[in-house]
């Protein structure tokens, strides 16, 4: 098991969170929001409120002009964040502020490679670690490009979490698993975020297959929109990921000028609470 041990950083906040969930006998809720959406201040309030609303892990999207794997909801949220002046540096500041209040909830940055490449890989990893970032999901870095960021991230003590998809076949799976740590993110549909939902039976089979190949926790996402759907996934997976539905809830609370209507952050957190209730009751 040497090869595996070397490819994983030491025990992380993510590992500890999944151990705790296992001890509680339940699946976790992973919530996605875009850093700086709709503006940095409101986003900080939302981010800081997520753990109390029931988010077990947090994915924070790093906005990019060209989010090729994302559907309309997350595309629009990225553009809102960029229009509000969001940058990689400010994204890390959101995390650092969050960490002053919460030492336990893992934060995973999710996004595309170019903003990180422009920031400088080494400087980014050092600053991300110092800010309290626990993991990275970089959509356009497959195992073929592991030398770019994945291997340096592991060395810096940050989990590199890989997406596996319905097109990842048996032959390819070992390559995908090789440098993955923290958890596996199973993308339940071939497609972009926030569109179709997968059939439950297909998800069951896919999770079972991944479990045969890896002892890592499996989170399932893409297309989970309601507390009931989250609960379905939570019966079989170690975590359910909800992104577009949360981002859409936030977008629905903006007025015509793009400003936040009063009470919207509370409304979004209320929705997260419903999702969390669904996930927590799933195996009851």
């Amino acid at each position: 098991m040497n090869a595996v041990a070397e490819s994983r950083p030491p025990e992380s906040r993510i590992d500890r969170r999944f151990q705790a969930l296992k001890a509680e006998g339940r699946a976790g809720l992973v919530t996605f929001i875009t850093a700086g959406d709709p503006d940095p201040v409101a986003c900080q309030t939302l981010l800081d409120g997520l753990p109390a609303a029931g988010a077990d892990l947090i994915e924070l999207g790093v906005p990019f002009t060209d989010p090729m794997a994302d559907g309309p909801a997350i595309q629009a949220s990225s553009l809102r964040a960029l229009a509000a002046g969001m940058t990689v540096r400010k994204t890390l500041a959101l995390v650092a502020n969050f960490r002053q209040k919460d030492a336990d909830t893992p934060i995973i940055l999710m996004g595309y490679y170019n903003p990180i490449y422009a920031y400088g890989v080494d400087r980014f990893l050092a600053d991300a670690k110092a800010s309290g970032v626990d993991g990275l999901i970089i959509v356009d870095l497959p195992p073929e490009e592991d030398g770019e960021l994945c291997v340096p991230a592991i060395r810096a003590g940050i989990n590199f979490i890989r997406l596996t998809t319905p097109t990842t076949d048996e032959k390819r799976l070992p390559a995908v698993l090789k440098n993955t740590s923290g958890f596996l993110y199973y993308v339940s549909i071939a497609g972009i975020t926030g569109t179709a939902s997968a059939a439950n039976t297909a998800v069951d089979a896919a999770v079972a297959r991944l479990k045969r190949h890896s002892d890592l926790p499996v989170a399932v996402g893409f297309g989970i929109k309601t507390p009931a759907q989250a609960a379905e996934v939570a019966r079989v997976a170690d975590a359910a990921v909800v992104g577009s539905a949360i981002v859409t809830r936030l977008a629905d609370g903006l007025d015509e000028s793009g400003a936040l209507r009063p009470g919207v952050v509370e409304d979004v957190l209320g929705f997260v609470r419903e999702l969390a209730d669904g996930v927590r009751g799933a195996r009851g």
Partner: protein
Amino acid sequence: MTRPNTYRSGPDEQGHFGIFGGRYVAETLMPLILDVEKAYREARADPAFEGEMLQQLKQYVGRPNPLYFAERLTEKLGGAKIYFKREELNHTGAHKINNCIGQILLARRMGKTRIIAETGAGQHGVATATVCALYNMPCVIYMGETDIARQAPNVFRMKLLGAEVRAVTSGAKTLKDAMNEALRDWVTNVADTFYIIGTAAGPHPYPTIVRDFQSVIGNEVKTQMQEQEGRLPDSLVACVGGGSNAIGLFHPFLDDPSVAMVAVEAAGRGLDKGPLDHAASINGGRPGVLHGNRTYLLQDEDGQILEGHSISAGLDYPGVGPEHAWLNDVGRVTYAAATDAEALEAFQLCAKTEGIIPALESAHGLAEVIKRAPTLPKDHLMVLCLSGRGDKDIFSVAQHLGVSL
């Protein structure tokens, strides 16, 4: 940097040209990208594939097209002897069809039943719609809303050919956004769909596939110049957006050290006006990762992609093919730039002097010819890739000249 033994051996197995290229795509696409690479390798080794492609290029596209001595333009400029490689005489009026014939044959070989493509000026969209009509395959073309407005004739052509043209309303609604949308479609319909990429960019193996299918341009020039002048040309000039016509012309000559090469980027309103005013990724950008490859990109400090500008929709792309990025860095090809105004002037000069209305894209190359030719001796043989015809551009040219049609 030491000079390599050959400039024609790239890319390496991972799809890299130096630090450029690669396969920066979502996991959903990776197995398919690997399939495309394998199928392409097998196809190139199969004489039947090569045979069908050559047959179609001859009978359907009309190749070889002439290497034409532009005598009046040569006289007017008073220097180098100027030849036009007449890609605009191909069926559909541009070089884009060369690559589309090759890729649709590959798609059929892979058993794919649906074709998607992105287009900027509409030339690649028209070429893709054409080969889809020819081979009776359903076809969806993604095109930015802005480009749809400035390239109305090509939009109608695509529809006549039976393609569905989907307007892209995200971002700046131009070529890069069309490419994002095509990638989103591909990720969703990965089982039955083949993506015909039109330029020498994107994830490996696309830059290689497009280069190889476009190399027919340079290979013909080599033969024709030998027949007509008994030797190699002295210099080659081509416009570059993504860079498919340029790499197709250049690649067969890369290891002929006597042949100079100039690629011409779109300088828009001027390189000195700032990154939003041109589309010159090599002259005015820096390396980054977009659309599956590392290359020179127009981007801000934070790695966000900028919307370039060019009068020519086909050059209005914030990146450039990775092999061009490498050829720039190793110094084998010179990357110049021409402004909107220079291209407009060249466009008109070509029409009046040679009776050829060139595409605005090709007019950027011609603008460089106009700058260089007068400084060179009369026995200097210069070849311009006249990559497309300009009928599609007459409306936007009229508008820029203040003429209402």
